């Protein structure tokens, strides 16, 4: 509320009042004011909110079961939705008939233009549970008078006839959360080791810095591949998920540790820290009451900028078949189908999930850049 009122004041009387406002604003308000001026960063944030919305309500945005396969529907091209029916807004799709090309034996699908299957928003489909406990059967899209799984193919289907759109929704959930879980682990390692390194200095600092330098000079992908391949083949999807996040964060914490260490070292020389020391504050109080609040925004920026690298790592590993394994669905797992050039040329839509990867990574980069610029008062 305070922000809203302050925002109005700026519009009404710029100049003197604005300066007063800055003088009494909290650090977080200042950061927010600077951040919202950064158009790209705000845009990136909105995109990310949308992505996490999809991750949270994947069952709603998907319209069929992502694992339901049907050989009769393999490799269908994305199907256009006709929005206008006889002059009014009434979306529909044509039914598709699958036949085999007598020459190439490829399955071809011909729309049957005499039928119109109406498409509705927020219609009824397969039952699912909102937030895991509220039963519902509403989906973003549904069809009337036919089975959704037999008639709606927004992004086409893969080789097993599974609907790519629905799979992409669930993959977004996996890939976006793996980024968060993994960055949380890296953050713990980075803050503890970087903090210890920067605060105490001396021999501990040297050792930790050497470890970081060593880790940074090792090519990571081969190492990740080796560790991931050593995971037992009989592990469940959940076990592999957590193992992969741990493997990625074990090597990825170094950048965060560097940022934290740099902050600690520069803050240690600030007058307010010395003042606290002279007043007899305990080490814990100095660190958590005086130092942490003044660099937490930098940590948030560094964390945001670390997530895209993690997402790319997971996608790459899964793409190679060494990360998450089917039946798990992630962006990398989806892209595995697009691995060879033959299948790509025949069915280029299999590459569509890559757009999700690129957009998510860009959005994280924009948001991270925005936070970093906003958090640095000396820029």
């Amino acid at each position, binding site marked *: 509320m305070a922000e809203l009122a302050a925002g109005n004041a700026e519009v009404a009387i710029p100049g003197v009042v604005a300066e007063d406002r800055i003088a009494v604003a909290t650090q977080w308000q200042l950061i927010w004011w600077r951040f919202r001026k950064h158009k790209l960063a705000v845009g990136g944030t909105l995109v990310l909110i949308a992505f996490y919305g999809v991750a949270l309500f994947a069952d709603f945005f998907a319209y069929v079961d992502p694992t339901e396969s049907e050989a009769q529907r393999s490799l269908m091209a994305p199907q256009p939705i006709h929005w206008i029916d006889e002059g009014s807004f009434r979306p529909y799709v044509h039914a598709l008939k699958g036949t085999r090309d007598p020459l190439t034996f490829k399955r071809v699908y011909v729309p049957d233009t005499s039928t119109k299957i109406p498409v509705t928003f927020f219609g009824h489909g397969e039952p699912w549970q909102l937030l895991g406990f509220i039963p519902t059967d509403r989906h973003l899209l549904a069809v009337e008078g036919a089975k959704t799984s037999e008639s709606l193919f927004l992004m086409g289907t893969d080789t097993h006839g599974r609907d790519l759109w629905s799979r992409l929704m669930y993959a977004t959930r996996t890939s976006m959360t793996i980024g968060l879980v993994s960055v949380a682990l890296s953050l713990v390692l980075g803050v503890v080791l970087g903090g210890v390194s920067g605060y105490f200095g001396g021999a501990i600092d040297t050792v930790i810095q050497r470890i970081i330098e060593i880790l940074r000079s090792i090519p*990571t992908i081969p190492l990740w*591949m080796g560790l991931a391949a050593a995971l037992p083949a009989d592990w469940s999807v959940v076990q592999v998920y957590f193992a992969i996040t741990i493997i990625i964060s074990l090597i990825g914490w170094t950048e965060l540790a560097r940022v934290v260490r740099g902050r600690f070292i520069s803050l240690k020389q600030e007058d307010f820290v010395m003042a606290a020391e002279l007043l007899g504050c305990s080490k814990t109080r100095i660190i958590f009451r005086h130092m942490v609040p003044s660099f937490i925004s930098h940590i948030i920026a560094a964390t945001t900028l670390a997530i895209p690298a993690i997402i790319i790592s997971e996608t790459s590993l899964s793409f190679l078949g060494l990360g998450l394994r089917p039946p798990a669905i992630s962006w990398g797992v989806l892209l595995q189908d697009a691995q060879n050039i033959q299948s790509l040329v025949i069915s280029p839509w299999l590459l569509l999930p890559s757009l999700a990867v*690129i957009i998510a990574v860009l959005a994280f*980069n924009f948001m991270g850049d925005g936070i970093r610029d906003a958090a640095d008062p000396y820029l």
Partner: protein
Amino acid sequence: MLNYIVRRLMLAVLTVWAISVLSFMIIHLPPGDYVTSYIASMSASGSAVSEGEAQALREQLGLDKPITVQYAKWMGLILQGNFGMAMEWGRPVSDVIGDRLTLTMVISVAAIIFTWGIALPIGIYSAVYPYSFLDYAFTFIGFIGLAIPGFLLALVVMYVGFAWFGTSVGGLFSPDFIEASWSLEKVWDLTKHLPIPAIVLGVAGTAQLIRIMRSNLLDELRKPYVMTARARGLPEYRVIMRYPVRVALNPFVSTIGYLLPYVVSGSIIVSLVLSLPTVGPLLLKALIAQDMFLAGTIILLLGVMTVIGTFISDMLLMWVDPRIRFGRE
């Protein structure tokens, strides 16, 4: 100066040691020891290993001893140049890897040369004409370059090459040269095939370097000495190229320390998509076949090569940057 060299050298040795421990761990992570899986793979291919042979192999590798002794024995063998046998191939690991490791490094170095060659002029342009149309265009392309994982870019290049130009852009040699022994023609053929993998590998690094170069040079150009130079009537070209660019270039050289591991890392996965004869496809095959001995050796050798490359670049940095040469960092 000597101090610097010694420190770098010690760090390199430490890193090699850390890599060897990690590789050793990877070899030993899966259940069962190397000999068990060796016997399994030999019997799968039809040839049996006798109990005596297995025992001899176990003794040679010290598999009945504690893990530290095993590590020492393994390192001993490797230092003698004996990398063991690659199961699937039935040949010594060094035979299987040799050329592929060299090609991995050739591609990585080509990618870095590309990165520098592109990032330097663009970085200078963007800093000299900030907020111009081209600056924005380069920044935009740079962001996209950062956001596209290497393997995706490789896929897209393959697709475009195949669907629009009807050629396969994969591979490093023309069919005539794949089996040929090394000759000048083969090297020329390799050079002709290098640009595409080098570009695919270099794009992400280039995007980063442009940003670094731009912000460094922008800082430098604001400094008073630049104004002094202008006031004294130096031609604009000399004002920029002679001093600020030289100063801004230093972080450029120092980034190779992490650029090289990054590019080598990326080459593994890009090679798979573009089917380049590097260690990448070999490593994946070995890992999927659970031939951890071959995989561990590849990871070790890749790591060592990277460390050597980084060390060389550190020496280069010393040559470029007088502050390091004279012992002030």
